[in-house]
């Protein structure tokens, strides 16, 4: 496990002072646009990513929401020791204490889904232990002592569950978990007790939105124990036609049942979305072509771009790309643009706080720069 890898040294890195502004920006850009975003997995034209999170607590220690700062510190230390004991397993992981990084960099981590918004707000003695490829991580002192997270591109729920479970076994070599014979893994929140498993998929469903079928589908999801959120957690902000579907039930179903249920429903959503795309193509190919072409035009030439606007534009271009109407741009580029144009990432890239208006200017500039490459 690396204590301080240069990839994760935030903007305070003194060595950066010796570099040119452009040099610093390039290095920061590399951190934002990690390899993960280039990845294309199965069904990547609808499923952006699959994620599995396991909540665990260590026996005989207060859960983080009620623990004092000292108790949180003890947990952090205990987790460090556990990771050090399993050194071989964690040689490619980096350990990042959240107390030591700036607010902007925390926002970057939230925007990349590597930590939760809660952890960015309340982070006394919290830490992130993240593998180099950014697909596997452990959040320490979030709502529970340990949140193991595996996030993979495309539809790969089974793989994500297996990877997270393996890491869970590895931690368990050293730690005794709070576990109850009848209730399973004991968590701070009653909504996660049992398996402690939250599986989710991030979906791009533009055709279901355009054809106004999405509300009917959202209603049906609730009936099968799944919940739909915006892509940044507990909100219903569906900007950019991006949706996150996850399981609600964690007690009474096995882990396999949980991910398989989500997998089955995701397959159905993919089919529905593809049918809707086909329908739109048959109705008027030119109209769709026009939609993505206009979006690309605005992205290339706009001078002021809001975050919601750019997310909608990226969605329009992505739809064109998936239908073969747009060329010369890759899904990876769009994924990177989606990350780069978020407020935290933009400010991190420039190395300073930006006002809302400055962000809009910078966003437009970065989009153009990216598309010109």
């Amino acid at each position, binding site marked *: 496990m690396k204590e301080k890898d240069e990839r994760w040294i935030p903007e305070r890195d003194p060595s950066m002072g010796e570099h040119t502004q452009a040099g610093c920006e390039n290095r920061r850009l590399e951190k934002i646009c990690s390899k993960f975003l280039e990845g294309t997995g199965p069904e990547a034209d609808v499923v952006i990513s699959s994620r599995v999170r396991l909540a665990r*607590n*260590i*026996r*005989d*220690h*207060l*859960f983080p*929401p*009620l623990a004092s700062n000292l108790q949180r510190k003890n947990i952090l230390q*205990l987790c460090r*020791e*556990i990771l050090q004991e399993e050194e071989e397993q964690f040689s490619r992981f980096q350990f990042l204490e959240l107390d030591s990084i700036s607010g902007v960099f925390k926002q970057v981590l939230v925007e990349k889904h590597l930590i939760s918004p809660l952890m960015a707000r309340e982070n006394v003695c919290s830490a992130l232990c993240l593998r180099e490829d950014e697909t596997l991580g452990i959040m320490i002192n979030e*709502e529970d002592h340990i949140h193991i997270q595996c996030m993979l591109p495309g539809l790969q729920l089974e793989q994500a569950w297996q990877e997270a*479970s393996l890491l*869970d*076994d590895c931690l*368990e*070599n*050293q*730690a*005794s*978990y*709070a*576990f*109850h*014979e*009848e*209730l*399973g*893994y*004991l*968590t*701070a*929140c*009653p*909504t996660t*007790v*049992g*398996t402690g*498993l939250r599986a989710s998929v991030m979906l791009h469903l533009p055709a279901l939105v355009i054809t106004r079928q999405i509300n009917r589908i959202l209603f049906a999801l609730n009936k099968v*124990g799944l919940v739909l959120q915006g892509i940044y*957690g*507990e*909100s*219903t*902000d569906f900007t950019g036609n991006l949706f996150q579907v996850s399981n609600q*039930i*964690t*007690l*009474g*179903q*096995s*882990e396999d*049942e*949980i991910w398989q249920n989500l997998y089955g429903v995701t397959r159905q959503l993919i089919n529905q979305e593809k049918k809707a795309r086909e329908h739109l193509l048959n109705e008027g190919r030119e109209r769709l072509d026009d939609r993505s072409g206009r979006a690309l035009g605005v992205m290339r030439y706009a001078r002021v771009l809001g975050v919601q606007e750019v997310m909608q534009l990226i969605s329009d271009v992505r739809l064109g790309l998936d239908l073969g109407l747009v060329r010369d741009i890759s899904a990876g580029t769009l994924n990177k643009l989606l990350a780069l144009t978020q407020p935290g990432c933009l400010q991190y890239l420039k190395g300073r706080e930006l*006002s*809302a*208006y400055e962000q809009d200017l910078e966003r437009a500039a970065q989009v153009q720069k990216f598309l010109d490459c």
Partner: protein
Amino acid sequence: MICEKCDKKNATVHFTKIIHGKKTEWHLCESCAREKGELERPFGGGFPLHQFFSEMMGFMPGGSSDKLLPQAQTGVQCSCCGLTYAQFGQIGRFGCENCYEAFAKCLPALFRKLHGSQKHRGKIPLRTDKGVKLRKDIALLREELQRKIAEEAFEEAAALRDRIKKLEKEREAGGAAGEGKG
């Protein structure tokens, strides 16, 4: 235009509030607007989950109507972390693993509402008492056996019965638990 609050920075956030028919206009800089809470997302940026099951459990936010729960239960306190059931209702979080025992009487109904079940059927920690693991495995196999019998798949049912017998023998022989950090 200069910010009306700090009188220093440029006002970049402009908004109008109409409360009880009275209209007020504000022109603030970003930091003053944020301080005033005017730059928050509409609806507070998310659905407060704890409020959801505070209400579900019969509590109302603010703790003013604790009377909705039987008096005997709101006062129950966890001996380990000191959290009372009333506080649990307000924050929606347990304080420690012992809370599950302390509030045991009140929880089945909540779990049924949240999960439709009160029984874990998934993974078991490797270092758990081997007896616990065997008991759970046997219980799951018995459920499966009943299903197979109902389906009249007798060959598979017989195989399951044999596996159950084998596990029961193992359980009688006894298992050991491991030790770890924590």
